[in-house]
């Protein structure tokens, strides 16, 4: 059994008493410690800026050309906090409970409670930074509702909340760059983690402009490299999102937890062609004012405006009268799929449902709706060619977020001492399904308010490195392996492109390990993945060389890692013989078609250990103990 190092004592006092017991580094000594932060999304930027403010020497690595472009920028709808400004009964306890329940009782209680506790400080800090959250005419902050909650606790900045929060963290980071506390390297990709005597001491990167492979050492390595939804090829994630950094860390000894927990977001613009490179999300915020429906009659080809009320099935309101259109994402997505599979879907492909705001437009007026969602409506129109003020939006679920990730203890440290993992890259807070507007909350909680305490405790117990250790064998060996992989990719000179392999893998996973999973299907995927992988290495075509900017090479390296990771992803789904949250095994469902958990056998975190020389990872379990909530069948009816 894995020990998560959860502090003892009552749930609500754990974090405050833990903070008191964590060791501190005195201000004069902080300068002696070198911290590496990989990734500049909400978690990475906020961590780097805050650690620099505290006085540590921070080196940041960013895959984009600017820290401001990390994928957190795309988050639309909002960020949760337990402020209860709406006076509608919210509290830290309620945010905690909603998150645990939303995650289908597969998250760690102590972490989730801490998340709810620090949520309010995040809003305070972001306002102080100048994040222009939406306000009411009184001048006070406005809230909207998100799925899985019956209170309005979501703070937002139009449909660009992620952008505004990231620009806040980014500007804090730039301030620390200006003050020489942070050194930032853009257009660099982490390609390996270096450990010395089992302790994380640095990373290997490739400079994406010069192609140079470099070693960087540090007293502590913090990874905030995001999720792996783009394993499906088509997802709402940006094109640079990938799992290479976490997969390399896994192969160096960090356990991978619950990789099969993926979130398929219900409201995305549907797939329309083979050439398509990504899918676009339409914010969950739209479900505040929008109603989801399909024609009652399968195959009804009438225009939506010609279908009268009695001919429409508002299926979420019908199935879940209490939460209606605001059920959690996993439940909404499965319902959409169910209706489309039954032939009630709309649009050219039949793989879409309506998200209809016409009632809200009529009630509130076009202007009010435009104020709330204009950027989303414009984006929808640009992509689909339809005007959503006149014709209801068509949406379909798409891969969006991964709850799984590197296993971390309560301090956010992985199984490798000295390697901390933040944000979507870790597995910690969302269980088997993440609630909307909670990813931004977690990323910033980890970076601003948790890691500054826990990293200090770790550093206080080690002596800072004061010599150049990048000449040590561990670094040279890791560098050598990276160089070898690059040269193998550019010299294969095969016939198929990285995108081609990626699409093949993505389709296989979407069919067999997507919204509905079966034992037989998962076995099929497990048979097929090694075949694709072996063809990849024989037949990959990477033009150009490794010695300059080469986007084909970058893609190929990431696909190569996905082809390894995919197997663990599927194996985890196969081993979990229950349904929970976003992991839906069709064999395990209630008579109403809801996910049916097996708490006796599977109330644990599955943490997989890579064993050198072996193809299959070894399973470790962290038992989930629920002290303050009762495990129940999740109901949103």
């Amino acid at each position, binding site marked *: 059994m894995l020990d998560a190092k959860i502090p003892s004592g009552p749930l609500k006092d754990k974090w405050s008493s833990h903070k008191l017991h964590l060791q501190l580094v005195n201000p004069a000594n902080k300068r002696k410690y070198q911290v590496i932060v990989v990734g500049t999304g909400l978690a990475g930027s906020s961590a780097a800026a805050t650690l620099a403010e505290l006085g540590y020497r921070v080196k940041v690595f960013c895959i984009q050309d600017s820290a401001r*472009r990390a994928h957190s920028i795309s988050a639309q709808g909002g960020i949760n906090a337990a402020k209860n400004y709406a006076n509608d009964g919210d509290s830290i306890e309620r945010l905690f409970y909603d998150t645990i329940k939303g995650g289908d009782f597969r998250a760690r209680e102590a972490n989730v409670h801490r998340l709810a506790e620090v949520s309010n400080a995040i809003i305070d800090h972001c306002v102080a930074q100048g994040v222009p*959250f*939406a306000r009411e*005419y009184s*001048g*006070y902050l406005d809230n909207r509702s998100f799925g899985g909650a019956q209170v309005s606790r979501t703070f937002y900045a139009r449909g660009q909340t992620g*952008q505004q929060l990231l620009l806040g963290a980014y*500007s804090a980071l730039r301030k620390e760059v200006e003050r020489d506390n942070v050194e930032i390297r853009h257009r660099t990709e982490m390609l390996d983690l270096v450990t010395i005597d089992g302790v994380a001491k640095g990373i290997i990167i490739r400079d994406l402009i010069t192609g140079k492979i470099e070693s960087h050492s540090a007293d502590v390595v913090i990874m905030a490299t995001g999720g792996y939804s783009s394993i499906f090829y088509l997802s709402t994630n940006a094109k640079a999102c990938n799992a290479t950094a976490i997969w390399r860390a896994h192969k160096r000894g960090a356990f991978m937890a619950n990789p099969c927990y993926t979130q398929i977001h219900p409201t995305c613009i549907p797939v329309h062609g083979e050439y398509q490179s*990504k899918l676009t999300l339409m914010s969950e915020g739209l479900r505040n004012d929008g109603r989801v429906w399909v024609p009652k009659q399968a195959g009804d080809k009438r225009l939506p405006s010609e279908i009268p009320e009695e001919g429409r099935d508002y299926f979420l309101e019908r199935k879940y009268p209490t939460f209606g259109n605001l059920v959690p994402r996993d439940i909404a997505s499965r319902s959409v799929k169910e209706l489309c599979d039954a032939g009630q879907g709309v649009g050219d492909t039949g793989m879409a449902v309506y998200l209809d705001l016409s009632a809200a437009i009529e009630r509130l007026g076009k202007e009010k709706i435009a104020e709330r969602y204009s950027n989303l409506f414009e984006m929808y129109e640009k992509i689909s060619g339809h005007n959503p003020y006149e014709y209801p939006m068509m949406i379909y679920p798409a891969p969006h977020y991964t709850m799984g990730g590197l296993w971390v203890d309560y301090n956010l440290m992985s199984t490798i001492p000295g390697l901390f993992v933040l944000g979507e890259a870790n597995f910690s807070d969302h269980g088997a399904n993440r609630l909307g507007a909670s990813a931004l909350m977690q990323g910033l909680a980890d970076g601003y308010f948790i890691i500054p305490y826990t990293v200090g405790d770790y550093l206080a117990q080690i002596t800072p490195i004061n010599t150049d250790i990048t000449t040590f064998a561990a670094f040279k060996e890791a560098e050598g392996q990276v160089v070898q992989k690059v040269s193998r990719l550019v010299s294969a000179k095969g016939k198929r492109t990285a995108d081609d392999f990626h699409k093949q893998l993505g389709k296989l996973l979407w069919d067999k390990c997507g919204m509905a999973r079966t034992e037989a299907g998962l076995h099929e995927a497990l048979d097929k993945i090694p075949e694709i992988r072996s063809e990849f290495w024989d037949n990959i075509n990477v033009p150009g060389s490794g010695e300059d900017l080469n*986007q084909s090479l970058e893609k190929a390296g990431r696909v190569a890692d996905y082809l390894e990771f995919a197997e663990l992803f599927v194996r985890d789904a196969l081993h979990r013989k229950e349904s929970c949250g976003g992991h839906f095994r069709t064999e395990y469902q209630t008579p109403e078609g809801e996910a049916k958990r097996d708490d006796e056998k599977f109330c644990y975190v599955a943490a997989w250990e890579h064993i050198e020389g072996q193809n299959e990872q070894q399973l470790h379990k962290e038992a989930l103990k629920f002290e303050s909530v009762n495990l129940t069948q999740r109901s949103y009816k």
Partner: protein
Amino acid sequence: MDKKLNLKLMIWRQKGPKDKGAFEIYKVKDIDTSMSFLEMLDVLNEELTHEGKEPIAFDHDCREGICGACAAVVNGKAHGKLKGTTLCQLHMRHFENNETIVIEPWRAKAFPVIKDLIVDRSAFDRIISAGGYISAKTGSAPDANAIPIPKENVDLAMDAAACIGCGACVAACPNASAMLFVGAKVSHLIHLPQGKVEGKSRAYDMVRQMDKEGFGNCSNEYECEAACPKNISVSTIARLNREFMFSKLTRKT
């Protein structure tokens, strides 16, 4: 509904910062009109790869118009002719069959070409470093509702804060000025009470950095506003000028 297009593409190819670079001509066939502009380039790149040639290097990431990575001048217009649209959100339905499309990188002294359509925009990061922030340390903030802020001020702040830092304003400006970028950040922060505290030095410091990076001056051409994918208004430049004058007059040094 979807048509297919055959297109002639004239694309700027440049191996590296020191290479001279030149246009090359490519042909693509059967381009679906519901493709995005970048997906059309993906099709070309797949073909080039199969022919054993190096694909066109171009910046892109979110492909939903918010990260600000994608950047190219299409037929003389930054991000193409569609108003208020990034290149990744420009779809092929806005082009005609057999059209010739000229595709070039941003052209500005402060944005040197790295390869093909990719330019170095790190000058923008350095301008932000010079003062584009409120120096609130983590942990020091009062309750978020402690200071009410008039809704109209926040709306104006948000209009300016919508800037994605893509650099189209610079590419469109005959002087390659970054005034709209700087104006947007200064306006965002000065509309908020929290941002006023450091307002005095902010405009001065950011403009000074802008000049140092080699961006040109503003001569009121309004090309920046026309090219901006987020419709940032030139009124932010007026605000910047006011703040700049004010900080210049009241500075001690």
